[in-house]
Structures are given as structure tokens and as C-alpha cells.
């Protein structure tokens, strides 16, 4: 490839060359995802903002701006930002050791541990609140063992702990998924040259890991920034984020203009954050020889490593799985009585939810969401990974994550009420809403991987006569399959556990599992509570199985990852 006398291209120059390629391909790839975004995000958002804000005259607008700049609003925004920053930092702190251990070592039960660690992400807050309150309250077993009497419920600490609980899976999946493809020989080379393990990590591995770390940080921050259930239920009435305020203003005070203004503030922050992220991302991406898992992982040998793995597993299980076991335990408190009760409809309720139907509906929607998010995400990532002006579009695709579900839900109501887009009350709308949230995950998981593929690999294939599509199928796809699987897991998870937007556009005849759980929990009586716990356990089991299944898939002809 290199001719004698010709200067080698730097990485930057290679990328610049790639950017100058014809933009027709870029436009074609991006067309469908862009239309999707315009139709199902910008259009409904525009509708609700238009209806909310255009009703205001000049005086109304001035009042609105004054309200936004008032001390109470500034406190609200400051709190929202502050808790998100702190939560993100703590989540990374907690999650990185786990990502390291699960990336580097292969040990029996690794896959199951990974699946279990992802389960919290899928559970509705309404369920998790009960579990976490059991662990954080005065009757907690921790109090019993340690002899203390702390009560962390309805405190700022509870919010932080809950955020770590939920978002640990993001660090694990994104960072670990990328870490496992890094060539360990790079770090080993540094070690042979005399670097201590810490220096090797700091100067070699960490910079290589930067794209995935950056992605995980951004996503977790956006999640915590738009946090609703955790702050409302676990934080208690003393705390409110922007999202909570938007919900209250919309639903309880019917102050649509203020709610719309707050939504805009939230979107603007997300936009700003994502711009920073995309600029940083381009700087930290490097070409890498991405390795399959079987070549980068090794079994646990030394006793020090065993201790490391065991301690890590204990921490993960203690933090993430133990609260859930409380729920599972409660569901089995009367043996299988609650589970059997799930299948009975003694009062012939018209909205009785047969568990199999709920599972079927949830799976149906989740699988459709995953398929759609994967297709759209792949197209988007292929269009965007080359850089250039693509960063703007990259930012646009992230905006749905930072948009209030209430605002968007109402937007759907306004936008899709006439044919040919009369989608209100259909499951299709639920799939579309879920895809909007799942799509950024797929893109975010794919981009670092695609950007890390050496262009020389593709050029080699092209030189050997392969057409564009063949290059993609034979070179890109197998390498990024892992990233695709990560994205699929997220899209699936988000859809299975989604409750807020779904509750606005659902039909009672087609319940999903979270909605069924919520119904049980809104009535007194141990039978209702027990059935809610049983449904939650079923949700956990179905999701775990889903994760394991997705991970086992490999493209034909490849070695096991």
C-alpha cells in the first residue's frame, strides 16, 4: 500500500480524505432515518410547542421568560444538572471495575452475571421503588447486619443510589463491549517496556477506551438529567427535576406554555451537551485492530485475579441483584399462589391481563422496536461515521433522549389524529415512540466501532474486487456485530420496560407487562401486591432470557465471539 518515497498518511488526513467522498452515499443512507426523525419526532414536537406557545401574546411571552429566569427555575435547573453530574460520576466509578473484570476475564457464569446486571435497566421505577425502599429503610437487612439504623429513603442519597442502580448496565454494556475488542497486546507492550500496571492503563488503555467512555458518560448523563420516576418516587417530594416540573405543569396545573418552555430548556441543554460530545468524540477516536472476544479474554488463573473477580461479582450482585431478590422473594411468599392467581379472572374483569398475553404484547412491541431501531441505527451510523458535517445530524438523533415524554406524548396526540397518519391508539405508535429512544443507543454503540475500523481493511477488500455492499457485509458487519448486539440489547430493554410514554398511548385491551404491574399496584390487598411482584419477576426472567439470546447470535461464518 505504501509506495517508497510517498509520505504516509496520518490518521487525520485519512479521515479528511474520507470526508471528501461523494455525499450521495451519505444522503441516501441518511434519508430514511432522517425522514423517520422528522416525521415522528420533530413534527409532533413542533405541534405541541406551536399549540402551547403561540397562544401567548407579547406580554405572555415576557411573563414566561421572567418565570424561566426566576430563582425557583434556576434552582430547578441547577439541581437537575447537579444531580445528573454526581450520578454520572458515581455510576462510572461503580461500573468501570465491573466492565474491566467482565471484559478481561472469561469465567463460568460471566454471561449470566452480565444479564443479571442489565435487568435493573428494564424495571419500571414503580417496582424498583419498593425494592430499594426495603434496602434503604430502617428495616433493611443491612441495618440488621451492621448494627446501624440508617434511613436513606427520600434523601438525595437515595436518588444517587437509584441512578447508579439503573445505569450500571449502560457502563457495563457500552464500555465493556468496546473494551473486549481492544488488543491486549498494546497494554502488554507497554508493560514489557517497563510501565507499571497503572501507567499502562492510564496512558495506553484509557485513551483507547475514550470513545466508549465518552459515549457511556453522555448517555448516563442524559438519563439522569431527564430522570422522572427516580426523583419523584425515591427522592420524595423535596426534590424535583425539569422533567418532574414539566409533568406537573402539564397535567396538574394545565400550564402548557410554561411546560413547553421548560421542555425547550431541557432540549437545549441536551443539544448543547450532545454537540460537546460529538466534537470530543471525533478527537478521541483512533484506528484500532478490533479483536474478537475469544482472543482478548483469558481465563482466571492467579489467586489475585480470582479474588478480583469474586469481589467484583459480589459487589455487582449485592448492588444490583439483591434488591430485586427482595421482590422475587415476596412473589413466592405464598408459594405459587400469586403466580396461579395471575391466570385467574374471578370477577370476569374486561381488562384482566392474562400473563401470557402481557408477555406476548411486550415481546411483540420490543422485538418490532429492536428490529426497527437496528435497521435505522445501522443506516444512520454508516452515514455518520465518516465525520464531516455529519456531527450535526448525529446531534439531532440524540435529541429524543432529552425530550420530555409527556411533551412528546401530547405531541403525538396532536400530530397523528388524521389519516393517513391516524395512529392514535395503535400499537404502532408505541413501537415508534420506543424506537425513538432505542435508536440513539444503537447509533452510539455502532459509531465507535465503525470509526475504529481501519480504512485499509475496506480498501483491501475493494482492491480485491468486492463491491460496496460486499465490503460492508464481509468486513464491517462481522467486526461491528458485537456493537450491533449491544445496541439490540438496549433497544429491547428500553422497550420492555417503558412505561411513561406507553401509558399515554396504550389500549387497555393490549396491555404490556409494566402496565399490568402498575394496575396491580394501584389497589390495596396482599393479593394485588403479590401479583404485581409475580409479574415483575416474570418481566425480569423474560428480559434476562432475551439478553442471553441476543448475545448468543453471531453472523454466519464467524468464530464464536
Amino acid at each position, binding site marked *: 500500500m505504501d509506495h517508497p518515497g510517498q509520505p504516509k498518511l496520518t490518521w487525520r488526513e485519512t479521515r479528511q480524505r474520507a470526508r471528501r467522498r461523494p455525499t450521495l452515499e451519505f444522503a441516501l443512507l441518511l434519508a430514511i432515518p432522517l425522514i423517520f426523525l422528522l416525521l415522528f419526532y420533530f413534527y409532533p414536537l413542533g405541534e405541541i410547542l406551536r*399549540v402551547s406557545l403561540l397562544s401567548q401574546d407579547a406580554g405572555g411571552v415576557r411573563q414566561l421568560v421572567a418565570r424561566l429566569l426566576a430563582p425557583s427555575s434556576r434552582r430547578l435547573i441547577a439541581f437537575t444538572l447537579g444531580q445528573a453530574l454526581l450520578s454520572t460520576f458515581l455510576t462510572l466509578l461503580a461500573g468501570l471495575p465491573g466492565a474491566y473484570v467482565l471484559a478481561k476475564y472469561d469465567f463460568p457464569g460471566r454471561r449470566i452475571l452480565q444479564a443479571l446486571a442489565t435487568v435493573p435497566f428494564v424495571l419500571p421505577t*414503580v417496582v424498583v421503588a*419498593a425494592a430499594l*425502599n426495603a434496602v434503604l429503610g*430502617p428495616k433493611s437487612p443491612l441495618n440488621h447486619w451492621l448494627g446501624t439504623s440508617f434511613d436513606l*429513603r*427520600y434523601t438525595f442519597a437515595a436518588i444517587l443510589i437509584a441512578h447508579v442502580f439503573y445505569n450500571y448496565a449502560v457502563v457495563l454494556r457500552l464500555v465493556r463491549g468496546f473494551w473486549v475488542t481492544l488488543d491486549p497486546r498494546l497494554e502488554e507492550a507497554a508493560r514489557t517496556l517497563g510501565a507499571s500496571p497503572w501507567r499502562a492503563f492510564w496512558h495506553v488503555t484509557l485513551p483507547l477506551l475514550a470513545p466508549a467512555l465518552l459515549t457511556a458518560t453522555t448517555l448516563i448523563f442524559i438519563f439522569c438529567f431527564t430522570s422522572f420516576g427516580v426523583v*419523584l*418516587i425515591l427522592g420524595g*417530594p423535596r426534590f424535583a427535576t425539569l422533567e418532574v416540573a414539566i409533568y406537573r405543569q*402539564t*397535567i*396538574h*396545573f*394545565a*400550564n402548557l406554555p410554561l411546560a413547553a418552555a421548560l421542555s425547550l430548556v431541557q432540549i437545549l441543554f441536551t443539544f448543547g451537551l450532545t454537540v460537546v460530545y460529538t466534537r470530543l468524540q471525533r478527537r478521541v477516536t483512533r484506528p484500532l485492530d478490533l479483536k474478537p472476544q475469544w482472543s482478548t479474554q483469558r481465563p482466571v488463573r492467579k489467586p489475585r485475579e480470582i479474588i478480583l473477580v469474586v469481589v467484583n461479582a459480589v459487589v455487582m450482585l449485592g448492588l444490583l441483584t439483591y434488591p430485586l431478590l427482595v421482590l422475587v422473594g415476596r412473589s413466592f411468599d405464598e408459594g405459587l*399462589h400469586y403466580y396461579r392467581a395471575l391466570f385467574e379472572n374471578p*370477577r*370476569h*374483569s*374486561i*381488562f384482566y*391481563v*392474562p400473563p*401470557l*398475553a402481557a408477555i*406476548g*404484547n411486550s*415481546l*411483540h412491541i420490543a*422485538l*418490532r422496536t*429492536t*428490529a426497527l431501531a437496528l435497521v435505522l441505527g445501522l443506516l444512520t451510523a454508516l452515514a455518520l461515521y465518516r465525520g464531516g458535517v455529519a456531527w450535526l445530524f448525529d446531534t439531532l438523533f440524540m435529541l429524543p433522549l432529552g425530550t420530555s415524554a409527556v411533551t412528546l406524548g*401530547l405531541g403525538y*396526540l396532536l400530530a397523528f*389524529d*388524521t389519516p393517513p397518519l391516524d395512529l*392514535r*391508539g395503535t400499537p404502532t405508535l408505541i413501537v415508534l415512540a420506543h424506537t425513538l429512544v432505542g435508536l440513539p443507543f444503537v447509533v452510539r454503540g455502532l459509531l465507535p466501532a465503525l470509526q475504529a475500523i481501519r480504512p485499509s481493511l475496506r480498501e483491501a477488500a475493494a482492491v480485491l474486487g468486492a463491491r460496496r455492499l460486499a465490503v460492508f457485509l464481509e468486513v464491517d458487519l462481522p467486526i461491528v456485530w458485537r456493537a450491533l448486539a449491544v445496541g439490540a440489547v438496549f433497544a429491547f430493554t428500553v422497550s420492555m420496560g417503558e412505561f411513561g410514554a406507553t*401509558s*399515554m398511548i396504550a*389500549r*387497555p*385491551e*393490549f396491555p404490556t407487562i409494566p*402496565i399490568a404491574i*402498575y394496575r396491580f399496584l394501584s*389497589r*390495596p*390487598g*396482599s*393479593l*394485588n*401486591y403479590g401479583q404485581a411482584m409475580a409479574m415483575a419477576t416474570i418481566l425480569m426472567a423474560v428480559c434476562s432470557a432475551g439478553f442471553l*439470546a441476543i448475545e448468543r*447470535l*453471531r453472523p*454466519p*461464518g464467524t468464530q464464536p465471539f
Partner: protein
Amino acid sequence: MKHWLPLFALAALVLGCTATAEPIPTAQPTVVEPRELRIMTYSSFDISEEVIAQFEEAHNARLSFLDAGDTGQMVSQAILSKDNPQADVLYGIDNTFLSRALEAGIFEPYRPAALDHIPDTLELDPEYRVVPVDYGDVCLNYDRAYFEDNALPIPQALDDLTAPQYRGLLVVENPASSSPGLAFLLTTVAVFGEDGYLDFWTRLRDNDVLVVDSWDTAYYSEFSGGAYSEGTRPLVVSYATSPAAEVYFSETPIDTPPTGAITGPGTCFRQIEFVGILRNARNRDLAEAFVEFVLSDTFQSDIPLHMWVFPASETATLPDVFVAHAVEAKEPAVVSAEAIEQNREAWIQAWTDVVLK
């Protein structure tokens, strides 16, 4: 192709799911070519299949229900989509949101004949844009075992709650996010007046009241009488029918409820729920027939065990568990729907400043 089997299986699953027209419905649709009546309601709505089938057969109709979340969400959606409503009938708007909906003009008046069986006190709209269909009383519930074990007298009036012997025993919901929470706040406004309710709440705050976000957190996590509660508080704001529900939904048959409701004068708030025909409804005659049906004894007698509220009709029969264990509030607190709409935000803000700061 080394791993075609799982790949094929997943492809078949995805294709199968996307090829299927609709997910699995839980209600069985009727066969003949009936007309569709759409009913928008909240997520706790529930009734027997037989009752619905009775209406569908009698009128050759197919009822489809739209779950619009909780009452607040439902009203927001109905108002926003009033020019092209999602449904023909709205079921379940209550008196705390009534004024907002009436002002937005989303209903069309209709006076059903069955209104004769409904007490006049429930009919809040003289123009019959909505008619009352059921009511629930938001009352304090107490944990019997706790009060017996500690030989504490059960509070009889709201003022008692500020007594030292009840310090740290009460959990309430945030009126900014919870419907029973708001109802309790309105009770205090009605009992102590707009000048006095904040003073009551100051005393209550000093008496260590716990505020949580919603009913299920209060009942299941803080109330000592709820199932599996880590809670230590034996007093909670809940419903007059909650003790009856505890009996009905107990895993082992019991005769007395483990909890009780305080229903004395000036301690409860009556949430009246209404049904109304939406403007621009499609099948107006079917909608009217449905409103009549909802007020009929068949439907009204079916309400208690499904939605745990009292039927509005005086001629409906109550189930045994209601007769034995559900007590209606005597002289519930009354705040007019208009006053609620006008002052809601101000009252909640004032309350927040006193109790949460």
C-alpha cells in the same frame, strides 16, 4: 453457515411478529358488523365482561376503550384533542378536574332518564354536560393492630392529628403529584378555611408528618397496615373502601379488615366521578345509550368490586364485602369545582412552602 439455527429462529420470530396484524388482545371482539363506540377512560377503569357484552349485544355495538393514564393525563389529552377527539365518551373525570374540562367546552349536554336515581348532591353540573357515575371518599386509614397494641384512641377529627400522641404516625401524599393527596389538602381547606389551613399544616409538619409522592408509595412502603410494608406509620391517607379491599384481596379469608377508615364529619373528601359525551362524537345515539347504560343498575352494581368506589345510583345493589366493611363518609368536606380550578396551583404552592421547605 455455522449458526444458522438461532439466526433463523430470530428472523422467523421477528418476521412473525411484524407480520402479525395486531398484538394479542385480551377482550374478545364480537363477530357481527357492529358500530364502534370509543370510550376514553383512566387506567384504573374496570368492569365485567358480561356487563359490557350485555350492552354490545343489546345495541349491536363494539366498545373500545382508550386508556389515557391517570385522570389528570386523561383530561389533558381530552382538552388538547377536543377538535378531533380520540373517543366518543369520557368516563371518569372527577370534581377536581371538572371545572377545567367544562371551561374548555369538550362535552355535549345530555340528560339521561336514569338521572332520577342519582342523589342531587352529586349532580355538580346543572347543564348536564356530565353526569355523576360513582364516587369515592378519600379518608384516613389506620392500622388496627398498632392502635390496639399501643392502646391509642383513634383520631376522630383532623385537629387530633396534631396532638403529641400521634407524632410521627401519619403519612400523606404530595398534592402536587397525587390525587388522594390533593383531596386531603382540599379537606383541610374546607375544614379550616383558606385562612387557617396553612396553620394546621404547620402544626402537622411540626408533628413529623411524612410526605411521599403517590398512593402506592404511601400505602405499600410507609403504611404499617399495608402488605409487606417496611413502614412504621399506622395512619395514611387512602380511601374509605380500602379496608373492604383488604378483606377481599386477602390471601387467606378474613372476617375483619386489618385496617379501618376514619369517616367522621369533616375528615374525608368526596371525589365524584362523571361521564360525559364528547363534542364531535361519532355515534351520538350509541353514546347516549351508553351513558344511560352506565347509570343503570346492571352497570352500577358491577362498579364496586371492580373499581372500589361507591355507585352513584341509589337503586344499585352493593356486594357483601361493601355492606360489611365499606363505610361512606358522613358529611364529607366540600370545595366547589370552580374554586378548585381557580386556586389549585396557589394552594399547592402555599402548601409546598409550608410543609416541604
